[in-house]
């Protein structure tokens, strides 16, 4: 607003009295709005950042310091909590298990979902609408409805207490979401290029791998990161289906730290930091594409 009216005033050098007073009230109002806007932003930033700061701060504190006031800044920051977590609680095993599970889920899910999304977006067949709706419905079906029957099915299939079984179970939530999001991306790519390639003799699968997937790479990366994160964060299925200590994933490892009688907040927060850092970094790399994909998928799907 101010920028559109300012240049003529500056150009004439001597603005008329009316214009000047109008400008003055406008800047005063703008200033008030600005203060309100930044005040609100600051408040929100504090509310968001404080718990995260607290997590870092406690992870660097020795037990006796955790309970001492004033508490905002660690007096003698130490890596002891991290050391204990890794050396005595086998946290590296949890991290390794989580990396194996999450990356396997991501690769398998991206492949299967690309096929499914390609089929839904580019092919004409009778049950296409039904398939699309089924994928949306399965996405909306919460895992908490399924874990009891799944426990029976998993036992029957001998998939219990294995990372391999966990990967298959995680596909139940990753495939619907990935397919949904990828459909949005694929739909935004004009089909002309694929058609051209097929006229030139490429097969339909070739068109997917050589044209559509390269063109949707940012979207694919975002969906991949989102899938990885979801698998990395999952607690319920891991809690139910993993019974051996050496197969525990990160959320499970931390979960067992809080079920003890004494809560070792130092190591717990150190574990929380290590669990949060990789996915938060990934998330920020992907967030731009994520928001686009989310809305593209939700409006068109």
């Amino acid at each position, binding site marked *: 607003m101010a920028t559109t009216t300012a240049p003529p005033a500056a150009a004439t050098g001597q603005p008329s009295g009316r214009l000047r007073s109008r400008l003055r009230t406008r800047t005063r109002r703008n200033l008030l709005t600005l203060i309100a806007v930044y005040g609100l932003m600051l408040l929100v930033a504090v509310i968001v950042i404080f718990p*995260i700061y607290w997590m870092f701060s406690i992870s660097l504190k020795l037990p006796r310091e955790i309970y001492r006031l004033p508490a905002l800044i660690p007096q003698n920051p130490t890596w002891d909590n991290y050391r204990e977590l890794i050396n005595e609680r086998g946290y590296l095993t949890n991290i390794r298990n989580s990396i194996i599970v999450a990356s396997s889920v991501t690769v398998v899910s991206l492949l299967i979902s690309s096929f499914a999304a390609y*089929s839904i977006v580019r092919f004409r067949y009778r049950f296409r609408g039904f398939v699309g709706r089924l994928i949306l419905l399965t996405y909306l079906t919460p895992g*908490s409805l399924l874990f009891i029957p799944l426990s029976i099915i998993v036992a029957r299939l001998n998939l219990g207490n294995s990372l391999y079984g966990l990967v298959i179970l995680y596909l139940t939530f990753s495939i619907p979401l990935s397919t949904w999001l990828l459909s949005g991306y694929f739909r935004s790519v004009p089909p002309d290029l694929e058609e051209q390639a097929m006229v030139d003799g490429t097969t339909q699968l070739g068109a997917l791998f050589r044209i559509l997937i390269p063109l949707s790479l940012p979207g694919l990366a975002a969906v991949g990161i989102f899938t990885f994160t979801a698998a990395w964060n999952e607690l319920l299925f891991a809690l139910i289906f993993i019974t051996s200590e050496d197969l525990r994933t990160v959320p499970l490892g931390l979960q067992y730290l809080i079920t003890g009688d004494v809560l070792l*907040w130092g190591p717990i927060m150190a574990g929380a930091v290590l669990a949060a850092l990789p996915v938060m970094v990934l998330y920020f790399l992907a967030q731009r594409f994520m928001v686009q994909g989310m809305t593209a998928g939700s409006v068109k799907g």
Partner: protein
Amino acid sequence: MSLLANQEAPRVARTSRLTLANRQALTGYLLVVPALALLLALVAYPFFFAISISFTDRVVGQPGNWIGLDNFRYLSQNPSFLKTIQNTIIMVVVSDILKLFIGLGLAMLLNQAVRGRGLMRAVILLPWAMPGFVAFLVWKLLYMPIGGAFNQILTKTNIYPEIIDYLGQRSTALPAVILATTWRGFPFWAISFLAALQGVPGELYEAAKVDGASSWQRFWDITLPSIKPVILIVVLMSSIWTANSFENIWIMTQGGPSDATMVFPVLAYFGMQSQRLGEAAAVSVAMIPALLILVFFVTWLVEDDD
């Protein structure tokens, strides 16, 4: 070479046009089969399996007998279960309302042309970017009576000198859990609304301004209707997630104290741990009607809107 191809072309085209459509359909089916098979086997089948288990007295290791509605009759007289329904409704409604106001407000704030909104956008994504179990672990620590930040701050500044065990007493446990859940969930709302707001054409506002519409009128007549589909979808999905969230309750309170924060997934999990699968399944299945209504009501609204 090219001459030959030209002569051949019409005949080939005619015979393959029919098969082309079929082949196309076949390829389409083949591409979707892996996803479809997995979802049918591990989502659709378990869904109906859960319903059928809920009508039996199945325990771990024994298929059990058909007992009709007995599980549901038992649950309907169980105070824990009634408390679970009440908690879930309060949690969904209160956190939805909080997230709606915070999300809309923040989205409109960040939709202004102010410096630093890019940074702010990144900042408010933080709670959503961190793993849920981490967020709830941190909040559990914040709420602790000894060593918890809230108690330390309140007692140190003398705002409230007494120690409060937020998660440990019935009166504060549910609000505390809702607050943490809202903290973790609002970024998704704000960012979705912001993306929707940025899709509203600016000319609409200019035109309304020329017509002398107040900022309230502009919000009510332009902003809200334009982003209504996104609002509805976000409300729907978030309600489903909140009603079914396991980790927030499991990590902070495990449903306690007694059943002050009990929710369906945790109750079902306890049921499963006590080996009574029929009863546990009935807990989950009891939620299906509400879920279905939620899903169909909002999809209907969205389709109606188009």
